C-alpha cells in the first residue's frame, strides 16, 4: 500500500520545528524514517502532517566532555557506531549501534527515532537504562530533562508530550572510568538483520584491574525485549557487587534475571524460552564486561 496523503514540512531549526508542532493538528516527527514510513505505508498511521527533521543539523552531534557524553537526537546509528570518542568513553553505545538491523538502516536511522519509538526490543533504550542516561526534551516552553527510568512508561509509550521533541541524550561519565570499566551489549538473534530475541546491556567497574581478584564496585544490567519497557535489573546487580564475579554470584544473576523479566511470546521464541535465555545472556554479558574491565591495556 501507499500511505494516506500528508503534508511534508522541512524546518531547518529546532525552534521552527517546535512552532510547527505547536500549530499543526495531527503531526508526526520524521527522523531517519526506518519505522514510521513502513507504519504509514500499511495505513497503521495516517498523520495529516510530517515534520521532517532531516534538515535540522543542530540535532546531529556527539559531545564528550569531562562530565558527560551527550548525543544529539538526529545522530545516525552509523555515526555512533564509528565514533572514536564514544569507543573510548562509552563503548556500549557504538557496540549497540553496530548491531542494529542492517547497514542501510544504520546509515539512516537515528538515536532519537529509536528512543521516540520506544520499542522495548530496541538497543539504545536498554543501553541507556543500564548507563542511567537522561533524555533531554524541548518544547516552546523550554527544556525538560527526564531520567531514563521515568521516560519509558509502557510498550511504545513514553513521557514525550505531543508538542515536544527529543533534543539529545546524555550519560554521566563519572561512574565509568575507562581504565577500570568494561561494558558490552550482547544480542541473541535468530538471523542477521532481525530484531533480537533478547539483549543484555551490562557494565562493570572494578576497584583495581591489576589485582589478582578484582572486586566489582558497580554493576549494571538492563535487558531488551524482555518486558514492555527496557528493563533494568538492580536486584541482579547486587549479586555481583562487592565480589569478584564468582560462579555462585553469576548463577544468582541468572535466576534473578529470569524471574524478573516478563517477555511476550513470539513466533520463534515462547515466553519460557525467553526467560531462560534472558538469564543466560545477562550472565555472558557480565562475563565479557568483567574481562574488559580487568584487561589492563585500555
Amino acid at each position, binding site marked *: 500500500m501507499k500511505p494516506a496523503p500528508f503534508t511534508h514540512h522541512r524546518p531547518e531549526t529546532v525552534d521552527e520545528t517546535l512552532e510547527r508542532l505547536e500549530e499543526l493538528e495531527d503531526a508526526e516527527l520524521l527522523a531517519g524514517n526506518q519505522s514510521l514510513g513502513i507504519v504509514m505505508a500499511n495505513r497503521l498511521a495516517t*498523520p495529516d502532517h510530517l515534520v521532517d527533521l532531516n534538515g535540522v543539523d543542530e540535532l546531529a552531534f556527539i559531545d564528550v566532555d569531562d562530565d558527560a557524553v551527550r548525543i544529539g537526537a538526529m545522530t545516525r546509528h552509523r555515526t555512533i557506531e564509528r565514533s572514536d570518542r564514544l569507543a573510548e568513553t562509552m563503548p556500549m553505545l557504538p557496540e549497540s549501534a553496530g548491531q542494529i538491523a542492517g547497514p542501510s538502516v544504520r546509515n539512516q536511522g537515528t538515536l532519537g527515532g529509536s528512543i521516540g519509538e520506544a520499542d522495548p526490543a530496541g538497543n539504545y533504550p536498554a543501553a541507556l537504562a543500564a548507563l542511567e542516561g537522561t533524555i533531554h526534551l524541548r518544547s516552546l516552553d523550554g527544556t525538560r530533562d527526564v531520567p531514563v527510568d521515568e521516560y519509558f512508561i509502557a510498550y511504545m509509550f513514553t513521557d514525550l508530550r505531543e508538542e515536544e521533541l527529543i533534543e539529545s541524550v546524555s550519560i554521566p561519565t563519572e561512574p565509568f572510568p575507562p581504565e577500570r570499566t568494561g561494558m558490552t551489549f550482547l544480542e541473541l538473534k535468530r538471523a542477521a538483520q532481525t530484531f533480537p530475541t533478547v539483549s543484555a546491556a551490562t557494565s562493570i567497574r572494578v576497584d583495581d584491574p591489576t589485582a589478582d581478584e578484582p572486586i566489582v564496585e558497580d554493576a549494571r544490567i538492563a535487558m531488551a525485549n524482555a518486558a514492555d519497557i527496557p528493563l533494568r535489573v538492580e536486584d541482579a546487580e547486587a549479586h555481583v557487587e562487592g565480589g569478584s564475579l564468582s560462579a555462585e554470584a553469576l548463577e544468582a544473576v541468572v535466576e534473578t534475571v529470569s524471574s524478573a523479566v516478563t517477555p511476550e511470546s513470539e513466533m520463534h521464541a515462547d515466553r519460557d524460552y525467553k526467560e531462560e535465555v534472558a538469564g543466560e545472556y545477562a550472565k555472558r554479558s557480565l562475563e565479557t564486561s568483567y574481562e574488559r574491565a580487568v584487561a589492563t591495556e585500555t
Partner: protein
Amino acid sequence: MLEFTGENEMEQSKEELWPYFTDTDILAECAPGCKEMTLVSPHEIEAVMAVGVGSVKPEFDVDVVVTRADRPDVLEMKAVGHAPRNEFETVAQMELKENASGGTTVVWSATADVSGTIASLGGRALKSVTKRLVKKFFSKMQAKADEGVEAESELEAAPEEDATLETDD
C-alpha cells in the same frame, strides 16, 4: 476479552457534569485521537478516531450506540471500530457518584474484544495504553468543565431493537 476499570475524581456535581459527557462536540474534543464525530440520532454516534501506541495509530471508523442514559447517574455505550488490519468491539459504562467534597467520582469500566495489529501488543500493553488515554480524556473533560464551556446533553438510550450493533462480518 479484555476488561478495564478505573475511577476519576472530578470537581463538579453530577448534574453539572452530565451535559459534558453527553455533548458530542465536547466528547469530540476530549476523546483522544478523535478526528471527526457526528451525531446520527440521539442514540447513535459515528466517529473517526486514530488510536494506538507510539506512531502506530490506525484510523478507526467507529459506530457507537448509547445503550443506557440515566441522567445523571449512568451512561453506557457499545462501540465497534474498523481500521486497516484492526478491529475492536467494546461495551463501556460510566457511573457518576457524588463524593464527600461535593464533586463527583466517575467509576468507569469497559470490556473489549480487539483483533489485528493492536491486539498483538498483548493485554498488558493495551491496559497501560488504555489507562493513559482515559486519563487524558478525563483531564480534558475536567478542563472543559472548569472553563464552564457551554454543553448540551444530546444523548439518550436507544430503544430495545436498536441496541445491537450491526457488524459487517
